C-alpha cells in the first residue's frame, strides 16, 4: 500500500490545482509577510506558516487563524519572487480545514463561508439579512450594537434589501449544483 502523503505535499497538490507554484520552492524571504496588511493580526505570518507547512506541522497550521485572516487581496501573490500563489495557498488551507472540520474554535470565517454558500445554493443570490445571524451572534454586545446601528443607517437610506432575491431558473440551477456536489439539497 502506498505511504500517506506528507501534509506539505497535500497542500502543494492543492496549489497546483489553483495554478500556482508549490510551497517547496519558498526561499523564506518574507516578502509576503512584509506586504500583508493583516500580518500583525495573524497567529503566524505567511512566511512562517509556509515554513511550518514544509515542516509538516499539520496541527499547528490548521489550529492557527492565519489563513482565515487572509482577505484574498493577492498582494503577496504578485510580489512572491518564486511565483507562489500565496493567497491561493490560503484558499487551499481554508478548503482543507473545512473538509476535515479542523479549525480554530471561535473563528467566524468557516461558519460564515458555510452560511454564505448555503444561501446561494438556496436562491442563487446573496441576501444579507439571512447571513447576519451567522456572525452577529458571536459579536459582543458593543459590536452587536454598532453593527445594528450601521444596518439601521443603511436601511434609512434605502440601501438594504427587504425581500430576498432569487434567480428565475432556480430549479435548473439547483440541478446544476447537484452535478458538482451530489450531496442533496440545502433548502
Amino acid at each position: 500500500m502506498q505511504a500517506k502523503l506528507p501534509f506539505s505535499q497535500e497542500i502543494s497538490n492543492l496549489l497546483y490545482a489553483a495554478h500556482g507554484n508549490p510551497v517547496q520552492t519558498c526561499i523564506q524571504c518574507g516578502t509576503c509577510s512584509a506586504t500583508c496588511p493583516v500580518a500583525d493580526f495573524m497567529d503566524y505570518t505567511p512566511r512562517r506558516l509556509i515554513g511550518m507547512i514544509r515542516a509538516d506541522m499539520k496541527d499547528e497550521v490548521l489550529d492557527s487563524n492565519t489563513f482565515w485572516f487572509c482577505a484574498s487581496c493577492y498582494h503577496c501573490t504578485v510580489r512572491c519572487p518564486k511565483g507562489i500563489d500565496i493567497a491561493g495557498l490560503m484558499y487551499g488551507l481554508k478548503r482543507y480545514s473545512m473538509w476535515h472540520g479542523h479549525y480554530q474554535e471561535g473563528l467566524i470565517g468557516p461558519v460564515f463561508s458555510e452560511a454564505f454558500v448555503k444561501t446561494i445554493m438556496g436562491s442563487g443570490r446573496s441576501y444579507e439579512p439571512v447571513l447576519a445571524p451567522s456572525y452577529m451572534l458571536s459579536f459582543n454586545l458593543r459590536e452587536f450594537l454598532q453593527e445594528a446601528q450601521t444596518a439601521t443607517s443603511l436601511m434609512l437610506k434605502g440601501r438594504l434589501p427587504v425581500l430576498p432575491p432569487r434567480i428565475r431558473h432556480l430549479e435548473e440551477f439547483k440541478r446544476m449544483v447537484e452535478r458538482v456536489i451530489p450531496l442533496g439539497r440545502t433548502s
Partner: protein
Amino acid sequence: MKTYALFPGCSLEKIALSYAQSAVESARLLGVEFKELADWNCCGATAYFHVDELLAYTLSARNLAQAERENLDVVAPCAACYKNMYFTNEYLKSDPDLAEHVNFALEEDGLHFSGKIAVRHLLELLAREVGPEQVRQRVTNPLEGLRVAPYYGCQIIRPRKANEDVEQPQFFEELLLAMGAVAVDYPYKLRCCSGSLLITSRHAALSLVRDLLQCAVDRQAAVIATACPLCQVNLECYQQQVNQEFGTDFSMPVMYFTQLLGLALGIPPKRLGIGSELVEATPVAPYADRVERAA
C-alpha cells in the same frame, strides 16, 4: 454605441444601487450601452472558494455562458465579481478537462461555455478602452480643484494577468484628470480594504480601514473614489464604527468613480444616486449644484 452585458452582482441591487445607476448613466454619454445579464447568479465572492473550487468555477461559468449566448462581452463593476469571472474564463479556456466538468453541470440549465467572450472591469472599460481623451471631450462640468484619492483596491489589479504594472498603475489617475479633478498621490491606493474580514475578523478589518482613511486625510483628499462596492461599504459605512473603536473623527466621503464621472459629464446628482451616502458628500456639492442650476 457599443453594447456590453452588465453583470451587476448582488451588491449593486441595493447597497450599491448608486453605483449601478451612475455606471449606466455615465457610460451612455460615452457611447457604451449596458444590457443586464438575463438570469445571473452570485459570483461566489470569496466564500465559494473556501468550500469547493469546481463549484466556484461552475457558478461563474453559468454567468459567462449566458453572456456568450447573447454574444456580448461582459462587464463587472465589482472587483471580486470581476476577478472570479475573469479567471474562471481564463482557466476554463486553458483547461479542457475542467471545462468539460463544468459544461456537464451547465447542461442542466441548457447552457454551454466555449470561451468566446472577454471579461472586463468597469473601471478598465471606461479608463482604458473608452479612455481619458474621449472623456475629456465630453466633460461639461470639470471637477476643478476637487482633490480625489484614487482607490484601486485589490482585485481589479491583482492577481497579475500578463505583464501589466501591478505596482504603480496610473489609469485611474488619468481618468480623474480627464474629469478635471486633482488626482491625489495616495500611497495606499492598492492596499486591501479588508474585504469580508469586516464580518469575520472585525478588529483587524477596522484597523485596516482606519489606516486607509488616515492616509487619505494625510494627503488632503476631499473624497476617496472607489471602483468596487465592497471597498465603498467598508470605507464609508464602517467609518462610524472606526471612529467609535479608535476615538478618531473621520468624515471622509467615499464615492463611486462613476458618480464623479457623471457629475463631470453634467448628469444631475439624483440620477447618479448622490444623496444615499452615510458620510455626506459635502465637497462635491458645489459641482452638483452647478449641474442642477444648468438643468
